[in-house]
């Protein structure tokens, strides 16, 4: 365990008050009002009986209530080891009771179930590595979210992102022309630096389709610029789609709206198919990888994704080890690396990530624990997407992460995942950590040789 310094502990103390006022939001409350007992019962039983199988049954029957999963969960560790936040307890307070009462649960129970599944579990699956039986509690929490979705009591902000997905196929209500404009704007800006740089749109037969999540064009267009710079300097044959399907994020996956989640992933793969690319490269986002590499493809009956899906971390690794990009001068400041659960525990990219960091930075310190065992950011499993009403308690639930970060003494925190990035940024501000936070791409862009690529060279 890390020992936080005094100022930290002081900080941590006053946050405990935040927990007392348990927030809720209009979507949950009005949703609850609409519910009838009959509908609650029918929905719960439908999901638990018809949408699960022997796997669920085995999880419920096998759990020996040994409590060993407790130490896995950041929420438990951050809340003074309050048993309510322990993984198996979350199942007890949702699934076990639903089963015991055969779905006849109250609205208060449901209000609690929304909280537990959406705000007190980040579906990071760390607990599956600590339970001797490998019981997948994240899977069961997603089932609870599925029930909440079917009962229409999903928290407001995340539901809004799903609505956006449903209408526009992207998460942030980005309009079709806005998207193209943003890409062209970045292309233009980048040409000041790289004379012939292009962001090729809809180039059929390109090697690579590059895809991002909707927050990039919306708030962080600079990231597209950087990616384009890297593609250009490395001389890749790449393209970006101009039509819906460009967004690889998938919030519906986190609300249990599997139908929309499936549609999003399908549109994404269809876009890649239309462009007849060899592989899909995606920006630094964890949950998006989970969607197109793990969950979205399954909903569409592909055991594995129909395209080779390359996460930014693996892509950077490829560019650097193949010498397509060279580092001019290594980054000097002391950096540490957050292993996003969806790309390390979810895709095993932690070792490549370390190699890249070491190629780019001079002074790298590990946070403890790390790799598959890293603590979750407490944000990117859909928790941060539940929005501002819950920010206070999210900060309480992240105490453990703050301690872990503080113990590294690093000046720069690398977070190669969008949601981690936002979540960790909040943590840094809230706990007053003296740290900058960056994407790995930021550092590569900053340190790389800005060579101008000329075709045929």
């Amino acid at each position, binding site marked *: 365990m890390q020992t936080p310094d005094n100022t930290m502990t002081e900080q941590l103390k006053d946050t405990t008050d935040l927990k007392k006022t348990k927030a809720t939001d209009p979507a949950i409350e009005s949703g609850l009002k609409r519910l009838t007992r009959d509908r609650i019962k029918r929905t719960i039983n439908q999901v638990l009986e018809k949408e*699960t*199988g*022997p*796997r669920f049954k*085995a*999880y419920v*029957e*096998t*759990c*020996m*209530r*040994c*409590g*060993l999963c*407790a*130490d*896995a969960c950041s929420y*438990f560790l951050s809340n003074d*080891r309050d*048993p*309510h936040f*322990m993984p*198996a*307890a979350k199942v*007890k307070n949702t699934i076990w009771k639903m089963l015991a009462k055969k779905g006849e649960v109250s609205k208060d129970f449901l209000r609690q179930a929304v909280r537990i599944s959406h705000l007190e579990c980040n579906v990071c699956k760390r607990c*599956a*590595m*600590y*339970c*001797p*039986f*490998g*019981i*997948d509690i994240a899977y069961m929490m997603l089932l609870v979210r599925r029930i909440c979705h079917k009962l229409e009591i999903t928290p407001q902000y995340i539901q809004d992102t799903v609505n956006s997905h449903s209408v526009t196929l992207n998460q942030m209500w980005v309009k079709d022309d806005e998207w193209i404009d943003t890409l062209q704007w970045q292309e233009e800006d980048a040409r000041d630096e790289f004379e012939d740089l292009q962001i090729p749109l809809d180039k059929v037969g390109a090697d690579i389709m590059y895809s991002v999540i909707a927050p990039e064009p919306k708030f962080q267009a600079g990231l597209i610029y950087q990616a384009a710079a890297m593609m250009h300097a490395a001389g890749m044959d790449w393209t970006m789609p101009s039509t819906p399907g460009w967004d690889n994020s998938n919030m519906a996956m986190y609300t249990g709206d599997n139908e929309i989640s499936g549609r999003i992933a399908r549109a994404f793969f269809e876009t890649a198919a239309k462009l007849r690319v060899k592989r899909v490269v995606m920006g630094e986002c964890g949950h998006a990888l989970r969607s197109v590499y*793990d969950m979205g493809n*399954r909903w569409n009956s592909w*055991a*594995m994704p129909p395209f080779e899906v390359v996460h930014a971390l693996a892509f950077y690794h490829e560019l650097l080890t193949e010498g397509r990009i060279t580092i001019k001068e290594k980054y000097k400041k002391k950096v540490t690396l957050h292993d996003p659960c969806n790309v*390390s*525990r*979810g*895709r*095993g990219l*932690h070792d490549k990530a370390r190699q890249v960091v070491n190629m780019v930075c001079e002074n790298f310190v590990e946070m403890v*624990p790390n790799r*598959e*065992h890293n603590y979750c950011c407490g944000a990117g499993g859909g928790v941060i997407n539940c929005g501002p009403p819950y920010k206070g308690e999210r900060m309480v639930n992240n105490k453990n992460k703050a301690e872990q970060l503080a113990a590294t003494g690093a000046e720069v925190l690398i977070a190669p995942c969008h949601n981690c990035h936002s979540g960790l940024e909040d943590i840094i501000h809230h706990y007053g950590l003296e740290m900058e936070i960056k994407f790995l791409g930021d550092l590569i862009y900053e340190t790389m040789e800005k060579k101008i690529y000329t075709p045929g060279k």
Partner: protein
Amino acid sequence: MNSFIAFIMGPMVWISVIIFLGGLLIKFFGIIWSVRQKEPYIFSYMTVRHSLRSIGAWLIPFFPKSTRLRPVYYGVSYLFHILLFVIPLFLASHIVLINEAFQVSWPALNNSLADWLTLVVIAALVFFAVRRNMVPEVKFLTAATDYLLILVVILPFITGFLAYHQWFAYRWMVVAHVLSGELMLIIIPFSRFSHMLTAPLTRAYMGSEFGNVRHARDW
């Protein structure tokens, strides 16, 4: 009385062993069948290699990180699970009975060693019960049935221990020993004791998801 003893030490043993093994077998094939019916995708992710890799990793004492965080509990738990099989299977008195019935035998534990190991099992079970009541996160999960399960396991060991020493009521103690042992066997397929079958399965599935799809370790 002798005919009652003949019954519980004869046909009743058969009945309980058949319920125990048959129950687990039926359960196993039931699981396989319903995986085929409802979740056939499970088979497309399971690989023998990754399943065994994960189960193997979790069988090595203090190899998984989780086991190193809780060394006392895991130590006791490992020992308990090994002894739970070793003591009954290698107890001289049991082997004598099996030899009389089937003319097969194998080396037995030294009597006084077995006696001490029995005490270790009883102590381990007491430890589990106390831990259930002491550690808040475990207590939070615990229901009366959890103590009941401990009771079911501890009874054959306590009665066996007392019977071996012939301290009191020998005949009744043996009867209680035989009956509680049979009760434990019979209960296994119908209770969470069936984790002896399902835990390797859930571990194998998680091990396959981690090894085969996620390319990560799960220990």
